[in-house]
């Protein structure tokens, strides 16, 4: 029997959603040119979805090592706050961006230290920073929403290069480099080995703790990058609300994309599709005019649908049903 690609179902869900929207509102897929750049709903989905995509990229590796990182939303808020404070004090853009990503790396290192070196449960270790991190972000901006008046900074999230939106391009570049780094070297294999069986991988000579730490550091850096995009998108650092519930979106994107929560297997492309799927879902609610009080229900239905289709047991059961019909 042919092995089906695990990307099939999320991709099918994504296409089905696009079709549904196109039927209800033919203008949904229309892309026009406005002031020399692309303009339309698909562009919005890419731009708005790019932040979740970036966070989910880091999350993929952490989950592949059998861990989880709940602190990414707070790290997004911290990175945004760092940007606002530095730009307000008149520091340069380059320094600001490095510091924001650096804050993410620092947060990731703290998580890595707790999980890989001190053996704290990942869900507990990262929960600490999830709670404390938002406090740190609020402390940085003194509980205020700080306006960022820097055109080059805003360009990162809302700018267009050759008519194409910059933020999705940057995130795509991150995906491609991550793919090359993980799949063209043995690194990806190491990550999967650690996630599959940490003890066995250590006996085989892998520095399991170091690989785990690296995954958290990478995840923190991604969240830092997403924090930059989040702040640039609204030209403001909102320490209280930025990145709220982003960890859940990211975990959803990873899982829907075919990466197992138990670790040991990861699909970078799947994560990208998963992140786009969740953003398309949100946009669909706006497009179809679903009342906001009801909107979580169709979302939940689609998520459970995709999750069921991915489960081996359900597909076996469905195949059994189909087989019985044929026999009859």
């Amino acid at each position: 029997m042919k092995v089906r690609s695990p990307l099939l179902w999320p991709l099918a869900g994504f296409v089905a959603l696009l079709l549904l929207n196109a039927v209800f509102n033919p203008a949904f897929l229309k892309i026009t040119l406005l002031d020399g750049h692309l303009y339309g709903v698909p562009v919005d989905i890419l731009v708005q979805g790019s932040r979740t995509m970036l966070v989910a990229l880091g999350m993929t590796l952490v989950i592949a090592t059998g861990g989880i990182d709940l602190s990414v939303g707070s790290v997004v808020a911290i990175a945004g706050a760092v940007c606002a404070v530095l730009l307000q004090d008149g520091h340069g853009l380059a320094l600001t961006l490095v510091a924001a990503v650096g804050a993410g790396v620092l947060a990731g290192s703290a998580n890595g230290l707790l999980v890989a070196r001190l053996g704290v449960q990942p869900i507990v270790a990262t929960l600490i920073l999830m709670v404390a991190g938002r406090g740190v972000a609020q402390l940085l901006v003194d509980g205020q929403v700080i306006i960022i008046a820097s055109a080059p900074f805003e360009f990162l999230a809302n700018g267009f290069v050759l008519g194409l939106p910059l933020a999705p391009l940057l995130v795509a570049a991150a995906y491609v480099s991550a793919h090359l780094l993980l799949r063209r070297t043995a690194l990806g294999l190491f990550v999967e080995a650690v996630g599959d069986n940490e003890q066995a991988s250590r006996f085989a000579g892998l520095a399991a703790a170091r690989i785990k730490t690296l995954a958290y550091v990478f995840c923190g850096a991604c969240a830092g990058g997403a924090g930059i995009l989040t702040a640039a998108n609204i030209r403001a650092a909102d320490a209280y609300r930025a990145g709220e519930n982003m960890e859940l979106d990211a975990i959803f994107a990873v899982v829907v994309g075919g990466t197992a929560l138990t670790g040991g297997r990861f699909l970078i492309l799947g994560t990208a599709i998963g992140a786009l799927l969740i953003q398309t879902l949100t946009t669909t609610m706006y497009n179809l005019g679903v009342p906001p009080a009801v909107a979580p229900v169709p979302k939940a239905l689609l998520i459970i649908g995709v999750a069921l289709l991915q489960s081996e047991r359900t597909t076996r059961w469905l195949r059994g049903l189909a087989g019985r019909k044929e026999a009859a």
Partner: protein
Amino acid sequence: MKSIPCLRLLFFLSLAVSAFAGDRQVKIGFAQTGAESAWRTANTNSMKGEAAKRGFDLKFADGQGKQENQIRAIRSFVAQRVDVIVLAPIVETGWDPVLREARRAGIPVILTDRTIQTADESLYACFIGSDFYEEGRMAADWLARKVNGQGAIVELQGTPGSAPANERRRAFADAIAKHPGLKIIDSQSGDFRRAGGKEVMEAFLKKHGRAIRIVYAHNDDMALGAAQAIEEAGLKPGTDIILVSIDAIREAVQAVVDGRLNCTVECNPLFGPKVYDIIGPLIRKEPVPKKSYNKDELFDATNAAAVIAQREY
């Protein structure tokens, strides 16, 4: 985690010292929700500043977003025998036992900002808050005059189920029902967030195009996000599309001055004077109104420039 009991001990010691030191000053305990927004900070500063001005001894407790902290604060206020307790409840339910303790000690409780759900309304003396319904009505009336009762509206709702979102939505719908030319053509939640307002407005602009004449946002943050989305679509917020919102944070009043926003209705956080005015009658056991509201104003192009300098939040 060890430092917390020590801190708590210090806190109580300092309270005990101040309790002995005080002469017959009016003692007020204020259990605040936390410091989650600029609005809340302005609210706290108003309560503290006005107490200092009137010579009240204000004991301030920051609940840090947790009900158990607020309950603990009320218990300590009761133990210190304050004259009045002011509570800004973080959630609506679960206050009955601690409020009964306060009543047993004979200490009246004033609720501010948000109300509570209780079977026994006598557990609190009165409620002083913002009239979210009135805010929505003011926004709608201003709009109807501005556009002569004509135009297609998109609404950016707050967090579904929250009191300000519910009331502002209901009031606006009630008020524009008198004007058949004013119609809400779409309504979605931006969750009171700037990013949410921007994202929803982007979707609305693609869906309805130039049909949108008016944006009504349940708070300033969403309106400012929407203004940005309108700019990115190549239109001029405030001119091509009229924006009306609520809260009157300083940035929004500035946007009104700059012409990017047309009108913002105040949701005044400066509760100090209103709350302390009621404390005198309360201590003298005179009857006080069970419900009263802080007065809110409206800022548009005619008066925004004059008030921007004195905006405190």
